[in-house]
């Protein structure tokens, strides 16, 4: 009996369709959700994504928390700057460190002037109301007056793919744990919040 090529093709297609339907029916688990095309795209993105920036972001978090409220060395500051969204750096990040906040070198010395007629002392100055004097700048202000490092350390950083976000679990020298969120956009830190 001679079997036509067309018959072979139809049979093969038919059988494979039956097989895939059967696999679908028998392997379907009632507790499993159906994946929508959106889900498939999302999971494909997860499968393809390689978290290459983790080390850099951890280094960033380490510098950010280590020098919080302290003087950050220039090379570390440059790194922080290069990894931060420009707006965020100006609005928040530079206020994190002592040596990058506004007017650090413009600390003014206050003069206390006795005000004999009213029986108490006040602070004299050149602004209206007589409060601050601009006479002597503190050009000898020493960095060592401030702590060198905060003592906080990065215990762990969790990456949340959905939000492109690192949640940093941070330890303190007192043994407490707190959390900071580092939102990433285009490979740079775009927001930091608690």
């Amino acid at each position, binding site marked *: 009996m001679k079997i036509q090529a067309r018959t072979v093709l139809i049979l093969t297609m038919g059988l494979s369709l039956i097989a*895939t339907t059967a696999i679908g029916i028998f392997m379907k688990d009632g507790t*499993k959700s159906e994946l929508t095309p959106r889900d498939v795209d*999302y999971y494909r993105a997860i499968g393809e*994504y390689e978290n290459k920036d983790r080390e850099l972001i951890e280094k960033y978090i380490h510098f950010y928390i280590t020098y919080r409220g302290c003087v950050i060395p220039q090379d570390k500051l440059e790194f922080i700057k290069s990894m931060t969204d420009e707006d965020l750096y100006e609005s928040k990040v530079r206020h994190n460190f002592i040596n990058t906040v506004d007017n650090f070198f413009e600390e003014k010395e206050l003069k206390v002037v006795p005000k004999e007629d009213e029986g108490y002392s006040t602070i004299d100055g050149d602004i209206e109301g007589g409060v601050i004097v601009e006479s002597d700048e503190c050009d000898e202000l020493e960095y060592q007056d401030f702590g060198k490092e905060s003592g906080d350390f990065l215990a762990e950083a969790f990456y949340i793919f959905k939000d492109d976000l690192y949640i940093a679990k941070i330890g303190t020298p007192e043994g407490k744990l707190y959390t900071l969120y580092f939102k990433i956009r285009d490979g740079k830190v775009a927001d930091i919040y608690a």
Partner: protein
Amino acid sequence: MRKRLLFVISLLFVAGIIAAYRSAQDYTKYMILGKTEEEYLNIIKANLLFTYAPKKDVPPQDIERVWEPYMTEKCIKRFSTPNEASQVKPEDVNAEIQYIGLAYGKFQKDNIPRVIAKLRVETKTRFWVFHLEMKLNSEGKIYEVQAYY
């Protein structure tokens, strides 16, 4: 010649179906207990609210029951045991999930997947804002819960 061409086409057709089936299967490895991320997090969110701000007269067994598919038995016991010393009545507690996210194992240093949730729990006189870090085992069940600020 025509026969061969038809044979090759039919082989490609079968191979295509198998490849599509396999690729769909691969994505399910990222699902947690057969749920998509969104579905799973919604369930965990609802369970957390049920646990931290239960309605009046909810027995602890009900809390255990909602966690049963998603937590190991040992963890449920620790998580759902009410604080006997607490003076707060369930009806006086409000809870809010301020953030919830799934940290897939493949993106973590220790390859352990986690759910991270930020909660605000409020009573008439006090409030607490804290994080829960819930580690998932290979089955997708929560086996360890850690709380911190």
